[in-house]
């Protein structure tokens, strides 16, 4: 069974706040849900499927379903793969809809890392330490230095440079200047990036994403419901997901991500190739995240990512692969340290023709949203969706 064409993203909402001292996390989830429902033209009681991940407080889906008063839920899923969870959820929602388990699925993400630093939440497990804890958690690993290890190895194997990585931030900043909600709106140069202070070699401050409060929500529906709504129809064409980790330590490989598996599954299901893609939302926790995933998804050969992203090739209207036209996690928003849902939201805007006019890709009928959750330097979950505008 394939999910191709069997579900539609009909509602999308990105919370406008980036700093939310006066709201609770459940409140932010609910505000995002209301925004996505209003966007779709549906109401709370239409929701019969609910999807959330480790950022959902308390008992996760059970707490949030009760808090929001969702009384018709007959399918729920709290798959947790870190920041990519919400891209996984789009695929799972499409599967559930295709199987008749629900017809209006709500996906929410929200949180307030700026108010309680480090409280991003990793979900699950009921307090039992991770099996690797005794041998990994003691060494001061963080997102910065574990992604730094990937960048260091990529430079070693392929000759990638800090200047090439900087181009990714430069492109994101060119897009963010048009986004009134973006956390960082100033256009930066390659020199600005490589002269910013070193955080964890070889990643500089401006190689890192922003830390923001806020959230987002999506509504995924059956074809029948989609036809009844007065919004452009964004069809889910393919989805793939893949876990990757050190796998016992033999043949450790930090220069490839799970995108080498999730990407072909999604492209294959959709029946398209990277060359067909008009717009790409690519997870951007760090510049190296983007570079590795662009290679692994097949937009260029492995090791060629540095050259591919240079000279504005990711800037809308300038380069061949317009990416993260909202400014992405690098400049716009990385709510509760999880950038997956905003990747889908900007892809939906592009396919609807509702991106900012300065960054809207002409005739944008096919897009990819791809994410990585956890850490590329230890263990992570990759997720890919291919989305198409229905003519």
């Amino acid at each position, binding site marked *: 069974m394939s999910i191709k064409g069997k579900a539609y993203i009909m509602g999308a909402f990105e919370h406008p706040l980036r700093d939310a001292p006066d709201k609770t996390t459940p409140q932010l989830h609910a505000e995002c849900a209301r925004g996505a429902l209003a966007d779709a033209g549906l109401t709370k009681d239409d929701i019969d499927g609910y999807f959330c991940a480790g950022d959902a407080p308390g008992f996760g889906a059970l707490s949030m379903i009760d808090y929001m008063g969702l009384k018709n839920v007959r399918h729920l899923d709290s798959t947790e793969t870190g920041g990519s969870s919400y891209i996984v959820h789009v695929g799972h929602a499409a599967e559930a809809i295709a199987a008749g388990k629900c017809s209006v699925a709500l996906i929410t993400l929200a949180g307030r890392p700026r108010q309680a630093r480090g409280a991003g939440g990793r979900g699950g497990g009921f307090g039992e330490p991770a099996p690797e804890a005794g041998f990994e958690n003691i060494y001061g690993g963080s997102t910065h230095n574990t992604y730094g*290890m990937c960048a260091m190895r990529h430079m070693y194997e392929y000759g990638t440079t800090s200047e090439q990585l900087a181009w990714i931030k430069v492109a994101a900043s060119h897009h963010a200047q048009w986004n009134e909600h973006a956390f960082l709106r100033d256009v930066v140069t390659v020199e600005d990036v490589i002269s910013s202070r070193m955080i964890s070699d070889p990643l500089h401050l401006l190689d890192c994403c922003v830390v923001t409060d806020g959230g987002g929500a999506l509504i995924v529906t059956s074809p029948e419901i989609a036809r009844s709504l007065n919004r452009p129809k964004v069809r889910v064409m393919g989805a793939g997901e893949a876990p990757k980790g050190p796998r016992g330590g033999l043949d450790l490989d930090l220069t490839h991500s799970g995108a080498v598996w999730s990407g072909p599954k999604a492209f294959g299901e959709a029946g398209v190739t990277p060359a067909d893609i008009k717009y790409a939302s690519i997870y951007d926790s760090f510049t190296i995240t983007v570079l590795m995933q662009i290679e692994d998804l097949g937009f260029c050969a492995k090791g060629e990512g540095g050259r591919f992203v240079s000279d504005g090739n990711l800037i809308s209207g300038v380069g061949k692969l317009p990416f993260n036209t909202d400014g992405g996690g690098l400049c716009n928003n990385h709510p509760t340290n999880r950038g997956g849902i905003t990747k889908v939201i900007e892809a939906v805007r592009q396919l609807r023709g509702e991106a900012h006019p300065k960054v809207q890709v002409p005739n944008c009928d096919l897009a990819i949203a791809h994410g990585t959750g956890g850490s590329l330097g230890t263990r992570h979950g990759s997720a890919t969706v291919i989305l198409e505008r229905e003519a």
Partner: protein
Amino acid sequence: MSEASNDPMVRPIPAPVVNLETQAFWDAAREGRFLIKRCVDCGKAHWYPRAICPYCASGETVWEESPGEGAIYTYSVMRRSQTGPYAIGYVTLDEGPAVLTNFLGVPPDALSIGLRVKVRFQDTDGGPPVPVFAPI
């Protein structure tokens, strides 16, 4: 076996989580011995140590003392730290598996991929000593 506190690359390390699967590793660490796990059935060594082989799912895994020598696979020097810069990275042991660790006894600028290193043990805050690596 504890590290000299005047090495600027030494960072305080908390007590590791010890459980039934790994108790023998930590008991050996207290004696300055570095153990890895190897599968009797498929013959492969793995890291971190588990009761069940991650390669063939056999329950026949045994402890093996290792010289703890290998080469740096990758590293990063964390500058955003309240206790000063420290180096984290992976060492590919001569037995095969890669080990996540900290590097000591080497200034940040002297670290490089491929550098030969050997295990040492660093005291922790209230727990057994943990493996760290320094240039041979």
